[in-house]
């Protein structure tokens, strides 16, 4: 089944689900399916159990951090400057809000096919970072979702044991985020070099 067929069947069979195809610019041509985060679990169960798909093997679960982006747009408008109407260039800055993303690579061992790439976004990077956990569907996501929680801060609802996996329990930062800053005194030698006049 092509990705377009999967998308239309999903939208037909899972009520309320909104799926769109994200085109991949690289020569690998691995396009992915972006699912809205409220229907992740139902989508996963459909993909795993449908007799024509049988995507029974979830190979890879990746989290990606997309920080807030600023886009500048220059538009030409006519304005009155010093009493004369002139064409002026105005720059407009818009902030595109960032989000955290989880990417699932699914394969079918029964039919020896794949990959089908599934994506889900959180609402934002700050307070609403919850997604549905797909561990009840594919147990291979268990440790990988814990790692996404540990290093990125995505909270997976429905995960049987969501706690930090690679860093220790009292650690408070999410180190793989793009805006993570390591503690200041960690590298004393660099401090010596960067201080002016040292």
């Amino acid at each position: 089944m092509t990705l377009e067929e999967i998308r239309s069947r999903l939208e037909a069979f899972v009520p309320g689900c909104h799926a769109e195809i994200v085109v991949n610019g690289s020569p690998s041509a691995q396009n992915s399916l972006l699912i809205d985060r409220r229907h992740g679990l139902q989508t996963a169960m459909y993909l795993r159990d449908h007799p024509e798909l049988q995507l029974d093997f979830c190979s890879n679960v990746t989290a990606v951090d997309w920080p807030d982006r600023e886009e500048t747009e220059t538009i030409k408008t006519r304005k009155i400057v010093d009493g004369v109407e002139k064409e002026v260039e105005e720059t407009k800055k818009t902030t595109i809000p960032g989000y955290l993303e989880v990417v699932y690579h699914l394969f079918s061992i029964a039919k020896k096919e794949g990959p089908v790439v599934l994506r889900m976004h959180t609402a934002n990077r700050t307070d609403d970072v919850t997604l549905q956990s797909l561990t009840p569907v594919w147990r291979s996501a268990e440790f990988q979702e814990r790692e996404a929680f540990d290093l990125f801060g995505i909270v997976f609802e429905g995960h049987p044991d969501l706690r930090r996996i690679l860093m220790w329990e009292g650690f408070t930062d999410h180190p793989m985020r793009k805006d993570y800053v390591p503690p200041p005194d960690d590298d004393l030698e660099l401090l010596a070099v960067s201080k002016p006049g040292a």
Partner: protein
Amino acid sequence: MDQDLKTELSKHGIFATSFEELYNWGRKNSVWPLTFGLACCAIEMIATTMARYDLARFGAEVFRPSPRQADLMIVSGTVTKKMAPQVVRLYNQMPEPKYVIAMGACAISGGPFRDGYNVLKGIDRYIPVDVHIPGCPPRPEALIHAFMTLQDKISAQHLTGESRPRHLKQDLPSEFPVPEFGEHGLEPQQNDEVFRNPLKVLQG
């Protein structure tokens, strides 16, 4: 005693030595390492004990799993901040005289992973290190060379006088404080009594 006299006597079957030499000879030829492999260097350490490079010839026949029975800790591999308290704890549990070989670039200074948020930039931030072997990973011959350097260091130690080693001086500590897990890293970040901070060295 004069070396020529010793050689002359030994030709007649008389073996002359000092207590210090005998003591150090016994110690250096029976150093038992702790089974302490952290990462890739551990595989080269295992290869050193295998049939081709055979570390057992030098007296390191048995690698003891328990720190209470080991003399030498070969820190082979990257020490991460999560592992660092365990390393210091194991070092504290070893009885004196104890030695540390920092094997590989990661144990010396963090190595290729130095930029990592979870990587401790060298185990000498918390415990004293006797021999450093550079390499990534060092060849088994380099580990044997480090072992022989350690043996030379042991045989050069004096039993009396100011320059006697740490295990014979009552006032020097043999256990070092174990770092705690903080919210952003380890606390304290280094042990200033042990760590030869390059910043302080530069400032004089």
